[in-house]
């Protein structure tokens, strides 16, 4: 069959080209790294738990220091601190609430405008709280001028800190992306997959076609600029395609278990957050053994967070270089930190004879209903995308536990009102 031989020859040539020009495959990633600097600096995300915590710690710390400086004797520190806090806390809470409310709008403003708005809010909040205190005399009012000066100073210092932090993290973005590149797809996966597809061209051309399409989708995602968050269901689909290719190579040795009953498909997650971890699971858990092994993927919604638990058989004497494993995990962890700060986490541990990776991300629903690539939308509302009320894992609907996580409440309400 001359055509088939021709196809196979083309593949072989393609593989050779890929191997010779690995540098070219990397190139598309390099551009955004160089270009991204002008996009910075940006205001911090005022809805992020990490940001809010940092502000709270800094401002209250300043109040403590002020009390210590002002009070002539140590016995008077608590009194002074109380006086300071009684004025400061209402201002702080008011401003944080306002910032929380306008955060998305603020994020769209140029940096300078945003910074002036935040400073203006500081002044406004100080004046408002002072007026309230003057009118009601609930607590002892402070010196207005002093409060304004200190407030603006703190506001400036914090903005400067967040700007420095963003700058400090930005090379990490570049670094993480470069590392991701090297860790992402192991070249041996590409070449083994091409070999597997070649082996199907003569005997099972249809399967060969399907496998090639999966490969195309996978590499499309791998090669694009992955700074934007993507819908969880897209990432899961990508993982399915990736695992289908691995299954082609490894056959019965690779068993896959999906548990996605309560997965919130519309949650926004960093692209390629799961795929590298699954690649690890296959490389370290399945490939070193000739006995069949199970990779299980369990994604669920719990207490305002999206959890993903990936398990694979632990090969104690697998002998594979575990450095590569750590690199992929560190890489995903770093990207979680960049996107979610303290709200995202990744832990890995050995449980019995299984290796387990536990990922936690805040539930941020996608506002656009257009998935990319398009995912079929259910005709009646978006029932499919809502996490089911009580499907296993003690999952709760978001509004039910709004009380304990006020920071995320507004986001959840917005999501529900959409539906």
């Amino acid at each position: 069959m001359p055509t088939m031989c021709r196809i196979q020859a083309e593949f072989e040539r393609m593989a050779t080209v890929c191997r010779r020009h690995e540098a070219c495959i990397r190139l598309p990633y390099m551009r955004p790294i160089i270009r991204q600097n002008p996009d910075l600096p940006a205001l911090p995300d005022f809805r992020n738990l990490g940001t809010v915590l940092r502000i709270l710690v800094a401002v209250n710390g300043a109040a403590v220091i002020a009390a210590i400086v002002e009070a002539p004797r140590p016995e008077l520190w608590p009194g002074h601190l109380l006086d300071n806090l009684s004025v400061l806390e209402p201002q702080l809470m008011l401003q944080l609430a306002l910032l929380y409310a306008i955060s998305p709008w603020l994020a769209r403003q140029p940096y300078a405008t945003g910074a002036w708005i935040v400073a203006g809010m500081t002044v406004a909040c100080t004046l408002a709280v002072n007026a309230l205190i003057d009118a009601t005399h609930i607590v002892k009012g402070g010196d207005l001028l002093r409060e304004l000066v200190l407030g603006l100073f703190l506001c400036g210092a914090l903005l400067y800190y967040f700007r420095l932090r963003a700058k400090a993290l930005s090379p990490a973005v570049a670094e993480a992306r470069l590392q991701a590149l090297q860790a992402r797809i192991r070249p041996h996966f590409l070449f083994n997959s091409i070999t597997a597809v070649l082996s199907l061209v003569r005997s099972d051309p249809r399967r060969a076609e399907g496998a090639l399409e999966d490969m195309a989708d996978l590499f499309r995602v791998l090669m694009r600029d992955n700074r934007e968050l993507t819908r969880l269901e897209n990432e899961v689909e990508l993982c399915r395609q990736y695992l289908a290719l691995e299954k082609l190579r490894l056959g019965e040795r690779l068993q896959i278990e999906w548990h996605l009953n309560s997965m919130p498909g519309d949650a926004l997650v960093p692209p390629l957050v799961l795929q590298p971890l699954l690649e690890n699971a296959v490389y370290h858990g399945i490939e070193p053994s000739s006995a069949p092994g199970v990779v299980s993927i369990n994604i669920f919604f719990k207490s305002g967070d999206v959890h993903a638990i990936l398990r694979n058989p632990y090969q104690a004497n697998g002998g594979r270089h575990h450095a590569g494993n750590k690199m992929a995990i560190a890489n995903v962890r770093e990207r979680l930190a960049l996107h979610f700060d303290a709200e995202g986490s990744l832990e890995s541990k050995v449980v019995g004879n299984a290796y387990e990776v536990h990922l936690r991300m805040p539930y941020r629903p996608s506002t656009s209903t257009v998935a990319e690539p398009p995912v079929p939308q259910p005709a009646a509302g978006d029932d499919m995308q809502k996490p089911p009320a009580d499907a296993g894992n003690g999952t709760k609907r978001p509004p039910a536990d709004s009380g304990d996580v006020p920071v995320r409440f507004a986001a959840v309400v917005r999501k529900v009102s959409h539906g």
Partner: protein
Amino acid sequence: MVEDPLRVLVVDDEAPARRRLRELLDDCAGAMPLAIVGEAANGREAMEILHAVTSDLVLTDIHMPEMDGLELARHLLKLQPPPVVIFTTAFHEHALQAFDVHAVDYLMKPVRMQRLLAALQKVPRLKPLTAAKLDELPASARRFLSVTERSRVVLVPIDEIVYLKAELKYITIRTAQREFLLEESLTRLEEEFGARFIRVHRNCLVAKDAIRGFERCVGDEGDAHWEVVLNGVNETLPVSRRQQYVVREIGRENQ
């Protein structure tokens, strides 16, 4: 005169890769006489197949479970005559530098028919790899030791070895079931498997897992020494004066 066909054994843990090599070998069969004598999913299976059949060439993947291609190549050296080995691998160039340096033959996956044919035509002129060459390649520790018994090569899993004892020209390998004789140096084995075995005597390495405890024994002339009591084997092994610290070390580890 018709040439004898080249007898080829294909070793790869991925079924599609084996199928692909088979197709390519069929394609090559038009250009030169070839016979595929078998297929194996790892090195251990390959050694089993080679009990029954002879092959001139082994085409083997490098990374495989149970026994990888590099270890297989070492055990193949024990066969008479040893077959030629050509590695097939999907790893990219810098991982293969050592192979280039030592002129070890390999084919990169996906394998092209022309390359394969060229390699096959070269086989009658190729010499089998040497142990020295294989030592230079970045291999991980072996999982088996191979011993020749009645012109067959038997694999002894490292996990099953209780102790290794040097005696004159040979090393005695003791497993729970029986003994084997091996021609290798104890020092080299200690280097390779240092994590698993501990030297209790100038001529003896014991598997740490197999040590049940130590006994104090008094000899005929009143001099006392320690002896190792073993799991699974009803024997004791003397601990030399120089290695006495082992008793304390193992004792501490087991506490």
